[in-house]
């Protein structure tokens, strides 16, 4: 296992597009070569070493490579984009599009992450220990298919459009979410332990959403089917008593999705 440590040294007045920072790209390269990889900032390309000091060489393959970013990089985007294996550890907060379209490997973010984490990812895992913003594991704007595989775990809160268009994989949120959680999902699982505000599961055609807290405004188009307790989806356990709804009946592909809502926090439903 080879570690490459990147230490931010500034120059982030414009955001940096760092899709080259993946174990796939770092594998087989020396610290020097890694520093020479080009990233976009505004209209021009500059070497990675303008923004980070690089220590350690890449491993023999992506699998053997771990990238450690030692510091906050909220203005660096696209780290881990399209990675297939290996590990990325961010010891701070990260920018947008972390792990977009990744198909394997592991990303751990110790701080917060910005929007679009894990957009259309198909495999691997992302763990955010802080909070994140919008479009977690969702589809690109206008697209029907979001994340198709893998797992995203967020210990804190997320905001809107969590898992928009989800077609596979799992998203687990420790905290709460806001609007359009699980809009248009067709498969996969979203488990929110905290509260959701409104439009949960709008236009869903399949898949499962579990809300452990309170839904402020429940989506019309769902019908109550049953009450179940202590749900289990593989290794994911959702303790407590849940009302089981199906939907969304507001669209032509009627009601093949399932939504579980905590009984305790949603007495009025």
């Amino acid at each position, binding site marked *: 296992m080879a570690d490459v440590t990147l230490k931010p040294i500034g120059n982030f007045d414009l955001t940096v597009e760092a899709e080259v920072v993946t174990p796939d790209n770092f594998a087989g390269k020396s610290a020097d070569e890694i520093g020479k990889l080009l990233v976009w900032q505004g209209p021009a390309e500059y070497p990675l070493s303008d923004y980070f000091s690089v220590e350690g060489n890449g491993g023999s393959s992506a699998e053997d490579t771990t990238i450690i970013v030692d510091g906050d990089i909220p203005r660096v985007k696209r780290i881990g984009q399209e990675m297939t294996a290996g590990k990325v550890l961010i010891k701070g907060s990260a920018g947008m599009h972390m792990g977009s379209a990744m198909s394997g490997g592991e990303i751990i973010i110790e701080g917060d992450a910005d929007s679009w984490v894990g957009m259309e990812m198909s495999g691997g895992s992302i763990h955010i220990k802080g909070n994140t913003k919008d479009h977690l594991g969702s589809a690109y704007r*206008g697209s029907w298919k979001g994340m198709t595989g893998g797992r995203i775990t967020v210990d804190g809160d997320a905001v809107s459009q969590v898992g928009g268009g989800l077609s596979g994989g799992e998203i687990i949120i420790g905290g709460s979410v806001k609007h359009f959680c699980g809009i248009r999902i067709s498969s996969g699982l979203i488990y929110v332990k905290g509260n959701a505000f409104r439009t949960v599961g709008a*236009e869903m055609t399949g898949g499962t959403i579990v809300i452990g807290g309170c839904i402020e405004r429940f989506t019309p188009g769902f019908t109550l089917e049953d009450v179940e307790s202590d749900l289990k989806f593989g290794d994911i356990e959702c303790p407590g008593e849940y009302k089981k709804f199906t939907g969304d009946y507001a669209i*032509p592909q009627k009601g093949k999705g399932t939504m579980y809502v905590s009984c305790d926090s949603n007495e009025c439903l």
Partner: protein
Amino acid sequence: MAGTIAIKNGYVYDPLNDINGEMMDIFIQDGKVVTELSGAGMKDVKEIDAKGKTVMPGGVDSHSHVAGAKVNVGRMMRPEDHYKHYQKKTPLTHSGCGYSVPSVYLGGYEYSKMGYTTVFEAAVPPMEARHTHEEMRSTPMLDMGGYLVLGNNWFLMRYFKEGDLDKAAAYISWMMRTHKTYGIKCVNPAGVENWGWGENVGALDQENIHFEITPEDIIKSLTELNEKLGIPMPVHLHANNLGHPGCWEITRDSLKIPKNVRAKPNTDVEWAETKKNAKRHESVYLTHCQFNAFGGTSWRDFESGVKGITDYVNSVDHVVMDSGCVPFGDATVMTGDGPAIHDLYMLTGHKWSNTDVECECGSGVLPFEYLKGNPVHSVQWAMGLEVLLYVKDAWKSIMTTDSPNGGPFTKYPQVIAWLMSNKARQDTIEECHKWAQDRSGIGGETREMDLFEIATITRANPARTIGMSYRKGTLGIGADGDVAIYDIDPKSLEVNDYESIIRGFENAAYTIKAGEVVSQMGEIVAIPEKNTFYSDIAVDDEAEQSMLKDVKKWFKYYTLGFERYPTPDKYLANPTPIQVNAEK
């Protein structure tokens, strides 16, 4: 700049001159094909060695959707179609993006890379003509023109109802000139009008709401007027009930309506030398036959109904049609047939857009993905190929994907491979849902088209059908110097190795437009001048004046002023009117 070019030793395919793979030289001077180069021309001649290569006239697409309001709606509603498929700018070319609905620049480049030089936009709503022309003007590399949508025009339907065909003729000729368009497009006659009230029509003799005229009336009147006016192309007909299981019967019956209408295209143009008669004799041009040829009675017993149509087409001489092939993958469905799009929305639940173009026509747009594993899609794939393979005479069929309805035009090389190689088809059937085998005849069809037939259905016949063969789709003396040279050696071509066919047609070794090399092995090397063709029809002044009085009165129902209605010349790249002589 029109150059002087000598293309040496290529295997030439020019169906209009019965040239089938003969090794010969082609000379181009001042943008036109000539017998030989004269003294002055010899000086700066550019010689291209086409030894071991296939030489064809530049590709002509007589039915594509590349410019105008609904194409633009497709672009706007599909950001996901654009972000993964893009091209950076170069010193010569613009940047561009989009897969099934590319930006205008990218569309032009991609057509050129495949050896195409002429593309006609198949649906121009009159009120959107300015916009369509603006986009065509910005589409590089291609000579273009557009078909005016007239099948559900209120003003025309009123004249039809009153039986005033003289005024209707005057109206059509005035509209062609006003909007600088080339031919007549008729979409779901009488049905699109009903869609304004949430209805459709289901039979040829069903009267529509308010106007009380039938699809039959409209098809009959339009095809008769088309010939009376001498318009270069036949009426481009999108039949009723499209996309519904069982629709093949109404399609066949629609084709019977203009059976006795005699084709009389009458244009004042100089014709390139051709051995075959380069004038059309068809009175109707059926568009995207595949979508019009659904069999069965529901989606459960859905099957190919292509044979019913091709049997009829094989037995008569007044029909020509394009295929509307489905090459699988991403597509964007866009049509003037609003109700058809609504039905697709009910089926798929996708985002969709519907528009009513005031008193003239309507349209709809919806993203679509054709999957090999989907039973209906796999049959549709088979049907598109059946249309081309079942029609015995290649001069009755044209290869299209109804781009981007069946799939984007960039899939043409793949479609050609299926037509030329039985193995390519068999291999695809293996990957498809079993319906493709069970509910169509494609599995048992062993016909393999040769390069001559491919040249017929991709350049010679589209050009002839739309009356452009006086300068396009042939390499006869006097024709435009539009040539596609493909890196395919007919002598060693092995059709079982169909990947080589796809590779060959994907990137032409050379695309030459008016004697200038414009793209080479997938790279754009020059941006040529382009022309926009339209029909300039001469008619009786008196009829026109009395018709215009009606139109001006009628304009109180429009949201724009009469003065703002016409498309001025400046909206067109090199406006090229074609003089058409109406019967007096």
